């Protein structure tokens, strides 16, 4: 009797702990498998690409014996599976190899290019959400009106116009003709020596350094590409907001709220949007993750030294260490953002807490 009584709470506790342990273990297993799959697929795609990676290092004009020596140095004479095992071993020890093109360790390169992309993506998402959500709400509330149509057309343009073209057009108008913004690049040449990056996020660095002239310059460089990316996420976010809002506005609790005599503003912003916010978080998170991959075309047009450009350039030169390193980063970003939106989801929606 007494023994069973004393065992009871312990068993209860373990029964409670087990699912948590299980879910943590499950999560780790999923992440590990995802990474390994990601690595394997990228690695083998990189190896079957019909590009000779030695070419990127020695160039077209190197004599045959140099080509052969470099091939051996890179371990390219080994069978694929051995190359892969060697690579994974390195990664597990935190060694992602050296980029052929920049001659830096891949992680050093990524530490340099990723903040550039992240800063741009964050600014883009803030702009996209700040304008996309109100526009989406407006379109939903005034469904079928001219305002709705305008928002729809805005969204359509955002979806369908090539960003490359729009980027050049924006440069032409705001930079070349009107002179409102600075041109391509992250910062003007005049600040190249006075400005010292700390975090790699230039806007934040300028604040840390209390360098307000540089801040203005950086701001005027980032605003154009960020608005452009913002416009594209705006297109997506406003469409999704509209449909979530329509869904909420047709619910019975809205009718009940109106019957209670609540003001329309309160109903829309306080009730409908609050409920629509839950799925909206996922939408914004996904669009943010998409921007974090680095928008190759935007980065090309605006000469923005970011991740997208880095990976594309590396891929074209069969610089596989750099491509793999970049892929892992993007994979991590997706996993992290999914996790983050999960957590936010729980905070916003009490039903998901249990």
């Amino acid at each position, binding site marked *: 009797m007494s023994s069973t009584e004393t065992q009871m709470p312990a068993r209860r506790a373990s029964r409670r702990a087990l699912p948590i342990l299980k879910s943590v273990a499950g999560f780790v297993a999923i992440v590990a498998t995802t990474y390994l799959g990601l690595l394997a697929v990228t690695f083998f795609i990189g190896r079957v690409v*019909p*590009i*000779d990676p030695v070419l*990127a*290092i*020695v*160039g*077209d*004009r*190197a*004599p*045959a014996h*140099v080509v052969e*020596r470099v091939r*051996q140095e890179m371990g390219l004479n080994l069978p694929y599976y051995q190359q892969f095992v060697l690579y994974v071993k390195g990664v597990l020890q935190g060694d992602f190899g050296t*980029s*052929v*093109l*920049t*001659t*830096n360790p891949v992680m050093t*390169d990524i530490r*340099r290019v990723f903040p550039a992309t992240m800063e741009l993506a964050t600014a883009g998402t803030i702009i996209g959400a*700040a*304008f996309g959500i*109100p*526009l989406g709400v*407006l379109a939903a*509330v*005034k469904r079928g009106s001219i305002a709705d149509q305008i928002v729809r057309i805005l969204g359509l343009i955002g979806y369908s116009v090539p960003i490359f073209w729009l980027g*050049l057009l924006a*440069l*032409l108008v705001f*930079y*070349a003709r009107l*002179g*409102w913004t*600075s*041109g*391509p*690049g992250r910062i*003007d*040449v005049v600040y*190249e020596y006075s400005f010292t990056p700390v975090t790699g996020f230039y806007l934040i660095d300028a604040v840390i350094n209390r360098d307000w002239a540089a801040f*203005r310059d950086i*701001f*005027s460089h980032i*605003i154009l590409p960020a*608005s452009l990316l913002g416009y594209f996420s705006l297109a997506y976010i406003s469409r999704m907001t509209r449909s979530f809002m329509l869904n909420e506005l047709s619910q019975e609790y809205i009718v009940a709220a*109106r019957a209670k005599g609540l003001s*329309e*503003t309160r109903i829309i912003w306080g009730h409908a949007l609050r409920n629509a916010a839950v799925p909206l978080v996922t939408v914004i998170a996904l669009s943010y993750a998409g921007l974090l991959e680095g928008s190759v075309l935007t980065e*090309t*047009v*605006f*000469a923005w030294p970011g991740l997208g450009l*880095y990976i594309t*350039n590396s891929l*074209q*030169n069969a610089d596989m260490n750099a491509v793999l390193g970049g892929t892992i980063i993007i994979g991590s970003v997706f996993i992290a953002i999914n996790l983050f939106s999960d957590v936010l989801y729980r905070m916003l929606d009490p039903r998901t807490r249990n």
Partner: protein
Amino acid sequence: MMMGKMNARFRPRLAGAALSMLFLAGSPALADTPADTLVQAWAIDDTITLDPAESFELSPAEFIGNAYDMLVRLDIDDTTKVKPGIAESWEISDDGLTYTFKLKPGIKFASGNPITAEDVAWSFERVVKLDKSPAFILTQFGLTGDNVTEKAKAVDEGTFVLTVDKPYAPSFVLNCLTATVGAVLDKKLVMEHAEAKTPSDDYKYDTDFGYAWMKTNYAGSGPFKIRDWRANELVVLERNDNYYGEKPALARVIYRHVKESATQRLMLEAGDVDVARNLEPGDLEAVQKNADLASTSAPKGTVYYISLNQKNENLAKPEVREAFKYLVDYDAIGATLIKGIGEIHQTYQVKGVLGALDSNPYKFDVAKAKELLEKAGLKDGFSVTFDVRNTQPVTGIAESFQQTAGQAGVKIEIIPGDGKQTLTKYRARNHDMYIGQWGMDYWDPNTNADAFTSNPDNSDDAAVKSLAWRNAWDIPELTKQVQAALLERDNDKRAEMYQKLQQEALDTSPFVMIFQQIEVAGLRGNVKNYRLGPSFDSNPLAPVSKE
């Protein structure tokens, strides 16, 4: 009613948002670059190292050419000659094997260390022992890791002696020494940063000769120092106050990596850069029409060609090779696709180099081509594939050729690909037709003669894989002529030999030469004395100034 009330509140919110967006975008752009700084927009993503012993690409050639000095330099006013660099004078022994260089007295590296013959000898030793891509430019004189300290030697502080293995044409040896691989390095400075190595079968020396450090650092004596390089971002050159020659007017030259021609043009127009280096024909035209801007150009040592793999039995027929040379619409290509960035050039030696043949006999002539195809037994034409990389102007030229060849019944299937991808296929001789560009390895006719008209061994596993080899063009007789020209010590006779080789190639080779590249630069109006040389290492920055 309720909706109306909401709208009244909603509207100002939106208007406010729109206004704030305008304010955000409204901070004014900063104009003009500093007066003592030249800012250039250029695609510099081909820079993978700053070490003269390894670098073999275009953009770093310009950095190294301005930041280092060689024994002798190319004279850009007469490109068939060399002029003194670190060497003040030189003598060649009667047997043609020994070159004795007297160094300029009292000159210094940027670090302040004196430049001695020992530095020169050690720089040669370093190149030969590291044996990277461009090392063959020096090792072709018979230098090896075992003999280099004997063959390239400092006899006293100011005298350097180079002994070559054959009585080469002196112009050949001197021309090769102007290449970036001949740069003289600051031995003391580099060896301070050298890493110890364990000798092995692959690498027999106990030091890396500063190889790791030199990838990103600088140890030279040119008019500028390389202060900073961030891959795919920027390169910064700074005036070298220890330079022995005339000091540059500019304190700093900054290269910004900008790939897009249209972007470069906008930046040039706005004054954010002083020089734009990758302008395509449309943008170049706009720059030339703009009164605030100017442009300059120079023919470069790069030729573009279509090549026909002789492993393809149709392309191997002499009549087909000739017919294809009549199927290029040279005039149309010259007037549109390469306008301002290239000129039609049908011989493989570039304009300005010793022995270049100035001859463009072929015209677009479908009837003539059809006649030749009929002679080859291909009256109804044939089908063939064409590997083309996705960049202009080659894509445009390939499409133009596809269309004009079609008029003679030749069906061309274009296989588009990335540059490195088509090149990999080409290097393995797996193509039918390929459109390529060829840049000279060093400023001497031997490099192109060796590439286009020499193929010592046409077997698949040959040790030397020239362009002739890549197209399986078996030419033992021409190969001998190329070797003979290398040993001809009379400059005029040597030039004649190269002209004969070019004529032969013009008549019979599987290379349809299209054009020679012209490098253009768009300039702000206040940039003075900006010149482009025939090679990238001879684009001089020292005379440039801004008003």
